[in-house]
């Protein structure tokens, strides 16, 4: 079987697994909607009818297939707390989340990479020690603490009081700076701490390779050695880390960040959905983010051969 077909099949099997688990948790053991729909003091006949409409009386597998069919046709249902279609809710909130998270995520990763280069270049001397020790201490500080410290410092009368402590009324670049600076800063700080040591280890590994010695012998300077020689060799693990932490940041990171700063993004929506047991919303977010992970993994396999000529999808044996 050709390798790309195998990879695609594998991704599909993962999708099946994820949807099965979310079906099991969210739908099968999830909140029973019949009571909510029936209103106060329903009689058993009424309840029975509603349950039939909702398909609760169907056998397990039938319900699962209906669920997959709905998901595949992006028929995500309606939010139970405000009645909006889930797809519309997501279309409104995903851009907000991206605006809050993406810049900080990218800047944080680039900054971590640059600092890692400094550390790897000065390996075992003071800049390296300073950076690695700082990031070890830094990852020991909870994201939560960083958020609270930053917002207390920048957003309250106790500190500098430069930014609003909550909210989101963004329609221009200036208003973006008003509302997104502090969350972005928090995200940059954790991203740098979280990635610095990993990127340093990657680069240090490359710095010990023979081809770096060759480059040095042929007059390459620090910039050239780092960016033109070592970096291309770390691109795969670097991008892998970047891509695979994206879904986690989008869903889990935004959960904390947006609920703390009151930003109406995916995180806030899922936070509200958790507390209102708003099953269709939660369901959609879990399934979609899992799909995102799997699609990213699937895509990565096709990108890698372009980054490293030694990887050849066709020639690879199972």
């Amino acid at each position: 079987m050709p390798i790309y077909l195998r990879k695609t099949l594998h991704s599909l099997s993962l999708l099946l697994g994820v949807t099965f688990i979310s079906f099991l948790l969210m739908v099968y053991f999830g909140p029973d909607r019949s009571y909510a729909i029936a209103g106060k003091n329903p009689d058993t006949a009424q309840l029975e009818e509603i349950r039939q409409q909702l398909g609760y009386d169907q056998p397990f597998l039938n319900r699962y297939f209906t669920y997959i069919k709905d998901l595949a046709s992006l028929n995500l249902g309606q939010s139970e707390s405000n009645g909006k279609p889930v797809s519309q809710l997501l279309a409104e909130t995903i851009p907000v989340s991206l605006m809050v998270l993406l810049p900080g995520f990218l800047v944080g990763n680039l900054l971590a990479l640059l600092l890692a280069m400094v550390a790897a270049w000065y390996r075992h001397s003071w800049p390296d020690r300073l950076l690695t020790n700082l990031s070890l201490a830094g990852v020991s500080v909870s994201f939560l603490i960083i958020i609270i410290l930053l917002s207390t410092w920048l957003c309250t009368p106790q500190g500098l009081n430069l930014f609003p402590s909550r909210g989101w009324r963004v329609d221009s670049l200036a208003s973006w700076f008003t509302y997104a600076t502090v969350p972005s800063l928090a995200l940059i700080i954790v991203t740098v701490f979280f990635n610095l040591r990993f990127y340093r280890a990657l680069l240090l590994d490359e710095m010990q390779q023979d081809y770096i010695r060759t480059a040095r012998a042929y007059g390459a300077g620090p910039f050239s050695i780092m960016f033109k020689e070592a970096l291309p060799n770390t691109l795969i693990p670097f991008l892998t880390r970047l891509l695979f932490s994206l879904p986690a940041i989008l869903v889990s990171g935004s959960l904390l960040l947006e609920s703390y700063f009151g930003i109406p993004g995916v995180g806030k929506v899922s936070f509200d959905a958790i507390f209102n047991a708003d099953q269709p919303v939660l369901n959609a977010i879990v399934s979609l983010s899992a799909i995102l992970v799997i699609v990213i993994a699937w895509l990565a396999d096709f990108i890698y051969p372009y980054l490293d000529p030694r990887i050849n999808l066709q020639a690879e044996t199972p």
Partner: protein
Amino acid sequence: MNPIVSIRNLSISYPGAGARSAVKHINMDILPGQAVGLVGESGCGKTTLALALMGMLPPGCDHRGEIIISGQKVDFYQRPGQPSARDHCAMIFQNPQTSLNPVISIGTQINRIIQRYSRLKKSAIPDRLAELLMLVGLPDHCGKLYPHELSGGMQQRVLLAMALAREASILIADEPTTALDAGTRLQILNLLKQLQEKQNLSLLLISHDLSAIARVCQQVAIVYQGRIVEQAPQKLIYTQPRHPYSAGLLAAIPKIHPKRPRKLQTLLGEANHATEQSGCGFASRCPRREAYCEQQLPPLNATLEKNQHFACFNPRPLPTVRK
């Protein structure tokens, strides 16, 4: 003729090695256009000497003495990318497979060096690349290939092309053929010799293989435990080695068509690296050892024949001249 490289009383020890040096009191000259061979067993300090010439010693080494290249003193801890004495030197390494960047095409890797060292216009670079590839005997399309798509011999040719791209006058080759199979080894050695002569390069060829050196070099230095124990023109070393260690190395070369079948000899024992003895370092393995050998270090002297230097109190006698 003035030497282009002169190494004066050079000693180097790695950090943490204590008093034991990797290279000890080495004196050596390389003339312009001369090919010098450096022979010795594993760990005797050959690579250390080469790295010192390139100004690429690992940080923290202790060193004494100096190296002068074209009248310019070598800074042993040259910061990468700074112009320096080592711009006169190009080096090729033992393991061509790992010495090339695996994710960058051959052409780009050579081009970078052309850009760095020649004053060519951008538009002239592809022609220069093609010229270099041809010089080292690689077909034109190789520029587009990646290192893993080449054989070991071709990879070594690429490194040679990089060395030529550097437009250096001195080429240091650290065991360039050790990782190659026998046939390829010969091709690369021939290419090396041909290039050295055609481009009038000074060559320092490092090897533990005396037969490889014989093919290419005019002058040979034999190193034992960081010291030069014998230094002489190639012919003399092969016909009348004076130091017992040189003789041992020669005897260990297998001959393919010996006139008289001869038992392959091996050097007895192993180099004793652990301690720094006061006498001759080779004493524990030497068949010609005398009691006085262990009292004092034999100096590297020129004896009657002026251009053959050796460090031995009891050298092998000169072969008797047959009438």
